[in-house]
């Protein structure tokens, strides 16, 4: 597995912490998932607020923390949020989201590239939430990003990999770059497919936290990611349109 800013992950599953029925179920799901990274956020806090307990909970998970800039719509907002996250979570990692469209939560890729440049110059290690556009990917890499995280489908939609062709093209175009499908994963087969395409990890949240049994779904995702990775390494056969007998024809008895 490729390293993420020189950090080797213990699993190709990156799991979000939002939307679980309770903190106990969150902890159980993470344990079942064996996730290699947890994603977190920042929100306004009142004295004695829930943030302090949550901080204790995620530290107990004992895995790398990837804070996001979710909900930010401008470069300034995202950059300021990143600075706050670096201090609170004590990590240079930042999942950079600059949202451009309210309904699809599609990233504003122009602002994303600019924000990435600013943060990289300031020593951040940027994980950009981007589209599957190759040109944008090139610009993010030119800015200094060492990871790309294209969407599979809109955040929280569970639609899977909407444009597999584009994701394959990204894998082919950037063979040395760690790539993560971030957003859109709904069921384990989506996660397995992303890994079969040669992606280095998948990042998902809602598919687990909103499942009827989050811990069971977390385990299913972990198995899917592992299966997909093993399949990619095994070099899958090429599909074909017409049948090809798997049983040898030569030597068949003449009986008609």
């Amino acid at each position, binding site marked *: 597995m490729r390293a993420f800013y020189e950090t080797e992950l213990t699993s190709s599953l990156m799991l*979000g*912490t*939002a*939307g*679980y029925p309770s903190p106990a179920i*969150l902890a159980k799901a993470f344990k079942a998932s064996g996730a290699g990274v947890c*994603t*977190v*956020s*920042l*929100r*306004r*806090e*009142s*004295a*004695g*607020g*829930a*943030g*302090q307990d*949550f*901080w204790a909970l*995620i530290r107990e998970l004992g895995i790398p923390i990837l*804070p*996001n800039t*979710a909900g930010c719509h401008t470069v*300034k907002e995202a950059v*300021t949020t990143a*600075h*706050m*996250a670096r*201090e*609170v*979570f004590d990590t240079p990692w930042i999942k950079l989201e600059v949202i451009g469209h309210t309904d699809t939560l599609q990233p504003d890729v122009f602002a994303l590239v600019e924000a990435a440049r600013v943060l990289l110059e300031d020593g951040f290690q940027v994980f950009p939430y981007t589209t599957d556009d190759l040109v944008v990917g090139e610009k993010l890499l030119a800015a200094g990003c060492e990871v790309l995280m294209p969407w599979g489908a809109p*955040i*929280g939609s569970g639609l899977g990999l909407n444009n597999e062709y584009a994701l394959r093209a990204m894998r082919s175009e950037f063979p040395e770059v760690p790539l993560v499908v971030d957003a859109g994963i709904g069921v384990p087969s989506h996660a397995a497919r992303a890994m079969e395409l040669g992606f280095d990890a998948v*990042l*998902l*949240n*809602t598919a687990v936290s909103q499942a009827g049994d989050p811990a069971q779904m977390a385990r299913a995702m972990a198995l899917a990611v592992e299966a997909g990775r093993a399949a990619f390494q095994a070099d899958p056969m090429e599909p074909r349109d017409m049948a090809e007998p798997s049983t040898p024809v030569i030597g068949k008895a003449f009986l008609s």
Partner: protein
Amino acid sequence: MRITLNGEPRDVTAARLTDLLDELGFGDARVATAVNEQFVAVADRAGVIVAEDDRLEIVAPMQGG
């Protein structure tokens, strides 16, 4: 003086940001701050004086995807 704390009006006494955080009950809490949309690092808080009508944002770890 009256400031805006996390988007809501709030009457406070202390002006130095470190003292103000104590007054608001954040003592040793793990939070990050911004004054008038500018990030203020922990190390800089003692040197920041909050004035009437300033906007103070205090954020903490929260669930996220």
